[in-house]
């Protein structure tokens, strides 16, 4: 391959990576069919432009050029086409794709270094941009790959001479190209690790919930753009169906007043529905459609009549039948706790703890007012990367307690800055003091801490004076840590017992029949945990079933049937983490840190690792031997090749051997000269090599006669690694 061909190939590879980097940005958000069509077209043009030259076609240059040109404008064509066929592609995405395609076309069509450089710069910009806006952390790998190839490309183009200028004595066996590519990747990774965790995390834009009384199943896209702010008035102005702070009876869908209605001073008390409706102006564009919906105009001959139609029944009334108690915008398969009990008298669980605190600490974050559990606040603010904020919408919960995930540290309701709204009950659950129930349609932002598995590993079992005090720290006998015992206990419950709510069982009965409801699972688990020496408590609340997630609405519906009982265990620092003893419910996820995973992997596989290291060490140290075997094997089966191929293979084998012992043939040295210089000191070999070279020259460059396999075999056998080593040793000595 000549140098310019190599440059071209490399810059095309770089541009292709740039094109690929656009894919993840577009694939998941656009119409698949259009996207795939566009990329298939790009690929087709690429193939036509590249392969067209190799086949005999009339005017191959014209074909290649027009394919390249088409390739450059494909994204634009598709942007227009998709828009025409009502499946528009975002302008930014089209622009990015055009950029990528342009870079590829430049790389393919250019014959100059400058245009190639332009293509590389464009591709580099694209990669950088795509990496920085992508959500997926793996895109970095693409960038690293691009960079490695780019460094390789640049080094070959600009540093080649450096390598050639180096005297033979200091020339390393590793070329300057691989070395600099590896060095730059290493630098890049080190740099990434250094700035890792020091730059702010990007926040994902998420859809919230509109406090609409319309129910949970149906949601108006415009209403949802209100994003759970409670500020429904804006949405209501344009969309009569949505519920908001509008007292007009026409627009109101629900008789229930929202939290916004109750505490917005500007509106005051909700007006009685009997009083005259106060209308709020609608947007112009909505007047006619709404009129059409509310009235019926008819024209017959000379008369014109408009009849107001009777108000329609709520079309999505079914929601009221489906008893969603709360809605949850956040991860599913988790538990939302409302009550906790820490004392079991053999029949009943009661609460004895006194965590009551009605003075939560206020904290202003990003112009919104949060109320934090004072004990959890410092940790939440310090480890903000471990805090996840989710939305809870209470629809009809007959309790002042707020169902929130474990380790919830803070709450926030839009526009609410009154401290007396939130409190912590004796048992440690969040609640709204002074109320019979949480006002319906309240939307609460819930900040909860996640906990790494590493913290649980160091779980300390205290001697709680349980019936069997002997099971102290770590329950010695088995030498297992408290956490491991807990895990085995939970998995025992989850695998050996059957979940069945319909059997009314006592704990004893449960243990005998191995069948019972989740409260029995939880009770047994809590008591067992105490046996291990851990402080435990029973928790009741809701389980967010994964299948209850409504993708269109963007939240999960939790109904009264999702009531669930489980267990929490206390950590040394006073926090409680949950365990899930009941089968059929997802276990809480405690992600192990990379370090922990590594340790575990190492613990499980150290013997393999050791063997692998020893094996690879052995392989490396004996590489001359087994590669020699391999080469001999290759030579043995090469008899089926044509004589010229055999000659090429024989030379390749000899050169591979020479490279292995670190005296590879310099590129510019003809093979004959090189071979002769190798065996310069060995009279016997010299004759062989000379004859071989004469015949080889005659065959290849004289184009007459053919070389016998016998002669080739002689050389392949004579120039074994050992002999080469000896020869080079002599030559240097």
């Amino acid at each position, binding site marked *: 391959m*000549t140098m310019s061909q190599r440059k071209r190939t490399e810059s095309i590879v770089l541009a292709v990576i740039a094109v690929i980097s656009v894919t993840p940005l577009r694939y998941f958000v656009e119409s698949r069919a259009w996207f795939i069509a566009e990329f298939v077209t790009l690929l087709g043009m690429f193939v036509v432009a590249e392969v067209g030259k190799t086949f005999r076609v009339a005017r191959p240059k014209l074909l290649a050029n027009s394919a390249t040109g088409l390739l450059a404008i494909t994204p634009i064509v598709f942007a227009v086409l998709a828009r025409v066929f009502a499946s528009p592609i975002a302008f930014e995405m089209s622009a990015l794709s055009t950029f990528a395609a342009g870079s590829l076309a430049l790389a393919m069509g250019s014959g100059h270094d400058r245009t190639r450089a332009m293509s590389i710069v464009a591709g580099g910009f694209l990669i950088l941009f795509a990496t920085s806006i992508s959500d997926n952390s793996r895109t970095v790998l693409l960038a690293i790959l691009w960079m490695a190839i780019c460094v390789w490309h640049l080094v070959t183009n600009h540093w080649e001479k450096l390598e050639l200028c180096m005297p033979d004595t200091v020339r390393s066996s590793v070329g300057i190209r691989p070395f600099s590519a590896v060095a730059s990747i290493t630098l890049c990774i080190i740099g990434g690790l250094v700035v890792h965790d020091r730059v702010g995390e990007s926040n994902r834009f998420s859809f919230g919930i509109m406090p609409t009384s319309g129910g949970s199943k149906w949601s108006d896209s415009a209403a949802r753009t209100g994003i759970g702010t409670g500020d429904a008035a804006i949405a209501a102005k344009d969309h009569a169906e949505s519920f908001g702070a509008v007292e007009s009876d026409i627009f109101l869908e629900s008789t229930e007043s929202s939290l916004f209605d109750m505490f917005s001073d500007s509106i005051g008390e909700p007006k009685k529905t009997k009083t005259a409706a106060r209308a709020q102006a609608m947007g112009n564009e909505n007047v006619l459609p709404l009129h059409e919906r509310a009235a019926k105009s008819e024209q017959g001959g000379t008369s014109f009549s408009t009849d107001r139609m009777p108000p329609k029944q709520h079309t999505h009334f079914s929601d009221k039948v489906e008893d969603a108690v709360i809605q949850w915008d956040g991860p599913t398969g988790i538990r939302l706790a409302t009550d906790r009990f820490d004392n079991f008298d053999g029949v009943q669980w009661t609460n004895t703890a006194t965590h009551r605190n009605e003075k939560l600490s206020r904290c202003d974050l990003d112009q919104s007012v949060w109320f934090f559990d004072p004990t959890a606040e410092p940790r939440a603010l310090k480890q903000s990367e471990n805090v996840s904020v989710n939305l809870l919408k209470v629809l009809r919960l007959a309790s002042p307690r707020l169902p929130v995930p474990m380790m919830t540290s803070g709450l926030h309701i839009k526009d609410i800055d009154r401290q007396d709204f939130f409190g912590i009950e004796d048992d440690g659950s969040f609640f709204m003091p002074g109320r019979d129930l949480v006002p319906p349609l309240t939307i609460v932002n819930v900040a909860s801490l996640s906990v790494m598995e590493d913290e649980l590993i160091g779980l300390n079992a205290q001697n709680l004076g349980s019936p069997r005090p002997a099971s102290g720290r770590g329950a010695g006998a088995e030498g297992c840590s408290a956490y491991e015992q807990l895990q085995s206990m939970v998995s025992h419950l989850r695998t050996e017992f059957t979940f069945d709510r319909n059997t009314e069982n006592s704990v004893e009965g449960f243990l005998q029949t191995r069948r019972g409801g989740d409260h029995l699972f939880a009770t047994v688990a809590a008591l067992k945990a105490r046996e291990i020496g851990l402080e435990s408590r029973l928790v009741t609340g809701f389980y967010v079933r994964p299948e209850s997630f409504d993708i269109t609405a963007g939240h999960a519906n939790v109904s009264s049937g999702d009531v669930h009982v489980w267990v929490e265990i206390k950590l040394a620092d006073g926090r409680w983490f949950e365990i899930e003893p009941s089968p059929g419910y997802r276990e809480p996820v405690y992600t192990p840190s990379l370090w922990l995973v590594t340790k575990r992997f190492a613990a499980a596989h150290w013997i393999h690792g050791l063997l692998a290291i020893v094996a690879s060490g052995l392989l490396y140290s004996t590489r001359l031997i087994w590669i020699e075997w391999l080469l001999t094997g290759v030579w043995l089966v090469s008899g089926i090749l044509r004589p010229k191929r055999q000659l*090429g293979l024989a030379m390749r084998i000899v050169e591979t051997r020479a490279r292995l012992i670190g005296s590879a043939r310099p*590129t*510019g*040295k*003809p093979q004959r000269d090189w071979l002769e210089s190798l065996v310069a000191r060995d009279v016997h070999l010299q004759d062989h090599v000379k004859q071989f070279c004469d015949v080889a*020259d005659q065959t*290849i*460059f004289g184009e007459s006669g053919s070389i016998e396999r016998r002669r080739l075999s002689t050389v392949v056998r004579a120039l074994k690694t050992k002999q080469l080593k000896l020869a080079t040793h002599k030559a240097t000595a």
Partner: protein
Amino acid sequence: MSVVMENKTETQAALQTMRDQLGRVLLGKSAQIELVIACLLAHGHLLLDDLPGTGKTTLAKAVAECLGGRLARIQCTPDLLPTDVTGFNLFNQKTREFEFHPGPVFADVLLADELNRTTPRTQSALLEAMAERQVTIDAVPHALSETFFVIATQNPIDSHGAYPLPEAQLDRFTIKLEIGYPDRAAQLDILENATRATTHSELNHTVLSLIELKRIQRQVQTVTVHPRVREYLVDLVEATRGDSSIQLGVSPRGMLHWQRIAQAWAVLQGRHFVTPSDVVHVARPVLSVRLLTTAPNVGGVIDRIMASVPAPEYK
């Protein structure tokens, strides 16, 4: 076939004799002698770049003697005129006609000593002679000897009053050689030979007639150059043009010279085709005469270029 073989052996025998004969004159310089013969067979011209007293003139004389041709010699000085080289028309009072008096270029072997000491004007007079093998005097072209062979020397130390040879002139030389000092053994032999009685007669016989030489030169011209070797040559030439430390790369004419002398080298090795090794062997003398480098070390630049272009492999 047998004729070819016969020709071949005949040629090799003649060439071997020539090698021996020149080797007896110029002791311990077999590599240089080989290149000189190659240059002669390639129908080229030779530039010797060396210190005084290293045997340049001796070599030229020996070459001329081997060919049995005429040797002419010009000692280039600043006041040498073009007509002194090419010859001139003189008006003969008796015959009332112009008579042509041929200059030294009408020899078979022309030794131009210290070519860079003469003026560019005189240097240029050699241009046509070297390239076209003819001189034009008063619009009348005169053909030179068909085996016209120029051996020019230039003196590297002597920079006083030296006119560096122009590129156009340099490009007409096929190769540049540095004979250099002989090694110790050779020097001892030289001393020993000098004490012997002169036995010039043993040297003084023709080993290669001019007709024979012409035949071999034609044979050289038809030596096979494999397309891949040609590509290699082009790659090398392009590499010299693209290199940053070279001001002037190899011209197409230089490339032709290169191919021809590689062919001659192949004939010297008894082959009828050119191998990449032949191209590499003659690369340094061919390139050193015509590369204009910014770096002081031309040899290093040549080595680098030769190392950077991959040679054709057996496949």
